[in-house]
């Protein structure tokens, strides 16, 4: 079973501790939410997993094997795909080229179906496949970013605030796609600021504040605003 495990992960930028002793686990077929206020260390956690943030302690394990001290491209090839904050798609390349780029992160032995899966999940990408990615709307670009990550046929999908800047209707589409991705058996770690929707969608969610885990929430807590607020402000 391919699981992502963080063991007492600490991330430090110079003198600043961004993440302190964070431990969590994401299983296949699961969405784990990571919510919290700005500067809580959520993005840093994802970057640390990818190998682009300085890890000061702890371990990141994929399928029991450590990912520490690996270059970002190697982490990707091990089976972790990141949908970064701000999407970071290549505006001057076509939609199809962006997706083909995602294929670079393919694991050894995985079939080349990545593109097909992306098109199936987001039909609009297939329609616009020859267009320059820069011409797409925000929501379509988000779908492209997720599709690109899926093209690598990863074991684990990391998403950094996918709903940022999107209209509610588009957020529905994106979150709906995430549910389908979960059903397809991927392990998903979802970092978000929209606490309620995330908590409702995820199998369980962690609240991160000041680099530390404060609270664990289940979908049933999605309506409990008081609890959420208390966790954020603690």
């Amino acid at each position: 079973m391919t699981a992502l495990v963080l063991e007492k992960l600490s991330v430090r930028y110079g003198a600043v501790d961004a993440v302190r002793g964070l431990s969590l686990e994401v299983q296949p077929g699961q969405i784990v939410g990571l919510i919290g206020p700005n500067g809580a260390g959520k993005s840093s956690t994802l970057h640390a997993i990818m190998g682009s943030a300085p890890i000061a302690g702890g371990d990141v394990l994929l399928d029991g094997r450590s990912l520490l001290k690996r270059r970002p491209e190697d982490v990707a090839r091990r089976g972790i795909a990141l949908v970064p904050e701000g999407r970071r798609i290549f505006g001057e390349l076509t939609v199809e080229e962006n997706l083909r780029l995602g294929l670079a992160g393919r694991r050894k032995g995985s079939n080349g179906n990545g593109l097909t899966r992306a098109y199936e999940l987001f039909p609009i990408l297939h329609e616009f496949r020859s267009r320059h990615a820069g011409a797409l709307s925000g929501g379509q670009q988000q779908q492209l970013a997720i599709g690109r990550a899926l093209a690598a046929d990863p074991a684990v999908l990391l998403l950094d605030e996918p709903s940022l800047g999107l209209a509610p209707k588009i957020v529905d589409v994106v979150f709906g796609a995430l549910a389908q991705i979960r059903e397809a058996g991927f392990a998903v770690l979802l970092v978000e600021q929209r606490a309620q929707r995330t908590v409702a969608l995820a199998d369980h969610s962690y609240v991160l504040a000041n680099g530390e885990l404060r609270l664990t929430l289940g979908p049933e807590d999605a309506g409990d605003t008081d609890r959420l607020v208390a966790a954020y402000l603690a």
Partner: protein
Amino acid sequence: MTLAFLNLSWPVFADALALGSIYALMAVGIGLVFGVLRLVNFAYGQLMMVGAFALAFGGQWGLPNWESILFCIGVVLALSLVMDRLVFRPLRGHSPAVMLVATFAVAFILQNIALIAFGSFGKTAGALAYLQEPWDIFGVEIRKIAIVAIATAAVCLAAIQLLLTRTSVGLHMRAASMDFGTARMLGVRANRVITGAVLVSGLLAAVATLMLSVEQTQVTSTFALSDTIYVLMGVVLGGLNRPIPATLGGFSIGFAFGLLGGILPTNQSQYLPSFIFAAVIVVLLLRPNGLFTRATGAVERL
């Protein structure tokens, strides 16, 4: 100006196209490395110089032409890889200005090594000199090298275009030159892309060397030095980080030099470099952001 037109003849025109073609190849070579490394390789000309000396040695050792040419290409590729390992890699992440100064140092070192090894007289690289002879085309005498240069450049540029647009390596290179960090995160192998760019860049340098050697059979330590400076200016004029404008920029400089150098009398054409340099300054003033900085427009420090 009318006098100039009267001076224009087919051979001069062909030669200008040829020089433009050679400069266009050099422009692509410099642009490719800049794209993935954000490094302006001032030592590009010295790569070519070393290649020219290799060609000279080939002739000296009595190798048949094809072997000399292969030797030249091999040496240039090898030196490109060495430069990448020893100089480019440790400098990755530094500001482009620091990288420019560092490559300036490398150029200086190589130039003086050549000066020590071969003296100010240099060596003769006559392998391709026979291309100086003209072909008779419909009664006009055009130098063989002119046709060869234009054709070779066209083929190389087409091949590179195919490489960049139709292969995954090419796609990875384009992505890396747009946003290196994100490309890596997607699984693009940084080192492979850079090595690829360095090799293609080296290959182009070798080809340009071969063609320049036809006219400059006496190879000295300053071989291709001023050519590199002019190509660099042309690339800046065209647009350093966009491949097609960079190529056009390089071509235009070469073509302008060839044409104006051929039709203007010497006392007017000797100031041509100053006009090119002045044009570069104007372009840099009008569009510095478009050429060099990313969206932030932040001020860079040394």
